[in-house]
């Protein structure tokens, strides 16, 4: 299956791109995707542990199983307000 990945703030700086498309095995979890992203973008590796994920614009725990066509956002610690 294929998922779209969005990077924000320091994660985008480290990835060097703001979006990516990742081919990953069916039923992969957010955690598995993050592990893949760390291999694809080594500079992301040390910021990913602090990042939360959103699947289709809602926070999703790392155990969430992904489905084809979903959009996963990599969200560094937020600092709005």
């Amino acid at each position: 299956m294929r998922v779209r990945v969005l990077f924000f703030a320091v994660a985008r700086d480290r990835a060097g791109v703001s979006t990516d498309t990742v081919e990953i095995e069916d039923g992969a979890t957010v955690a598995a995707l993050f592990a893949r992203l760390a291999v694809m973008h080594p500079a992301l590796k040390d910021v990913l542990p602090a990042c939360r994920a959103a699947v289709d614009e809602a926070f999703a725990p790392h155990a969430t199983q992904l489905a084809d066509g979903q959009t996963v956002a990599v969200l560094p610690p937020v600092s709005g307000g």
Partner: protein
Amino acid sequence: MEPYGITDQPLDVAALSAFVADPAAGAIVTFLGTSRSSSADATNVERPVETLWYEAYGPMAAKRLRVIGEEARARHGATRVACWHRTGEVAIGEASVAIAVSSPHRAEAFACCRDIIDEIKRSVPIWKRERFTDGEEWVEGYDGSE
């Protein structure tokens, strides 16, 4: 106007206040988060900030503002809530976030407004970048852990 949103334009607290005005309300509380001219670094030394810049995951951030505002409104029995956050460059002293809450009595409006800003800082996908005289960096924020 829309009660919740993300904008790259200056925030208009008077418009938010007018939006929440209601005959059933005896109080309107407004809150502005404004950009500060200095920021403590990792060693707690204050450094002068030249400019501030906010990035948002726009569609999700707008949804989160609505959920946070409406949940707080229901929890506190407030009458109406409006809340906007700004993105892009925000000059020192200008507002990055504006909240308005009306309620029958003032205690609920104060409490509701405070809950909203506290939750925004925890769970709205927005990031602040500060530029100093000697460089710039993303501000480390809240990562979702307790």
